[in-house]
């Protein structure tokens, strides 16, 4: 079974803090994704990566950056957290370009 893990289930940060969200997958998948989920908006793609050190912007990259130094790990970074970044963050991985995505349990981030 594919396993995608995220470093925290719940996180509380203050405005202006730098926040790191970590995601690890154990199935040697090439592709990894970061989404945010907000009520009524579904999932929106922040960034994705199709190879180590390769990254592409998704639909809402502003205020975020990512890092993929190893194939199994994809980190989402909020350089200076703001209250409008309070959300559920979901990480996913896939083997194929248009393939099934396997999701982690999510990190619920509250920025005060």
């Amino acid at each position, binding site marked *: 079974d594919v396993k995608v893990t995220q470093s925290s*289930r719940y996180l509380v940060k203050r405005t202006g803090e730098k926040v790191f969200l970590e995601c690890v997958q154990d199935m040697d998948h090439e*592709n990894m*994704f970061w*989404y945010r989920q907000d009520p*009524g*908006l*579904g*999932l*929106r*793609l922040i960034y*994705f990566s*199709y190879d180590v050190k390769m990254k*592409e912007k*998704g*639909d809402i990259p502003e205020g975020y950056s990512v890092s993929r130094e190893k194939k199994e790990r994809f980190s989402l970074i909020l350089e200076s957290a703001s209250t409008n970044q309070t959300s*559920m963050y*979901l990480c*996913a991985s896939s083997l194929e*370009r*248009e*393939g*099934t*995505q*396997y*999701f*982690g*349990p*999510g990190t619920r981030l509250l920025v005060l």
Partner: protein
Amino acid sequence: AQKVTQAQTEISVVEKEDVTLDCVYETRDTTYYLFWYKQPPSGELVFLIRRNSFDEQNEISGRYSWNFQKSTSSFNFTITASQVVDSAVYFCALDPAGGFKTIFGAGTRLFVKA
């Protein structure tokens, strides 16, 4: 523009009722993929089905069935004899061929009451 619309925000049914979740999509691509995912209260999205645009056969998997109609750009999901464990948020998603940018609908929250 590519878009997925799940017009039903919330549906509430009583156990053993059948329920259909609607999904309408927009795309100009001729090749694309459609998905359904389930998000139970635990939060982790779980894959249910993937269908490519050239395969319009309906699919049945146990109590779940999917009706894909290109003519109406719809990919509806039916749960037969619903159970309390079916309570979740269900997402329909569209993946354009050759791309990584999956488009998700807003989701439909299903409540199944005992």
